[in-house]
């Protein structure tokens, strides 16, 4: 791929990179900076590619590293609200009756592969992740998207393992509810 084509391809990736960075960083300025650094790094590396999908995977890889660097720099600021949220622990009480059973029955979601064929699903998924409270969303994406180990999350965020487990659980419950309401409840779709 020549430089001009690479420039065009990278420019085309900017929106999706920004969306991913924003999901993780919850801050537009940081997201912009990280995306710019990513695109500069990609241009400087000037690789040759067989096709578009390889480029996207590679550039997203750079983006992930830049996001991790951003976390390291922002370390202190981010942990305070994480600790505050971690202190409110019992938020999923309303899901369960006194005898410990669930009050609302979950829907059947079906085959993941079928769902993943629909691009609209991923838009809904992004919306649901975006709706997570900032500290929950950040930790959730560190675990699920950046694939940090729990111990690494605890170190970066200055929280205990128990805090991390509770926050991840709450994030998963909220995400589950959001997806169920906004996607699975409306099935079948065309």
């Amino acid at each position, binding site marked *: 791929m020549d430089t001009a084509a690479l420039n065009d391809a990278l420019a085309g990736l900017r929106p*999706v990179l920004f969306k991913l960075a924003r999901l993780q960083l919850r801050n537009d300025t940081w997201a912009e900076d990280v995306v710019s650094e990513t695109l500069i790094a990609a241009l400087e590396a000037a690789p040759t590619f067989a096709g578009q999908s390889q480029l996207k995977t590679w550039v997203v890889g750079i983006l992930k590293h830049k996001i991790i660097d951003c976390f390291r720099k922002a370390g202190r600021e981010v942990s305070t609200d994480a600790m505050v949220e971690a202190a409110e622990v019992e938020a*999923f009480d309303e899901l369960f009756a006194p005898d410990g059973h669930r009050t609302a029955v979950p829907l059947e979601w079906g085959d993941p592969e079928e769902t*993943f064929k629909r691009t609209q699903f991923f838009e809904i*998924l992004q919306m649901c992740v975006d709706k997570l409270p900032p500290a929950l969303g950040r930790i959730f994406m560190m675990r*699920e*998207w950046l694939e940090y180990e729990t111990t690494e999350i605890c170190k970066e965020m200055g929280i205990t393992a128990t805090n991390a487990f509770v926050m*991840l659980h709450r994030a*998963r*419950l909220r995400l*589950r509810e959001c997806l169920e309401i906004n996607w699975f409840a409306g099935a079948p779709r065309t």
Partner: protein
Amino acid sequence: MNGNWKITCREAHVLLSERLDRELGFAETLRLRAHLLICAVCTKVGKQMDFMRQAIRQLDR
């Protein structure tokens, strides 16, 4: 968690989430498995948590 092998749905939900973040202990694993055998709801929720993990990993594709 009490001393016998039975756990509630609430406890099962916690284990279903934590198994995605750490290795469950032997007793925890047995208790969870025993509960899932008799609880379709928690079994479903466990599958949904796996579903969400797969989905997030596909976000950048």
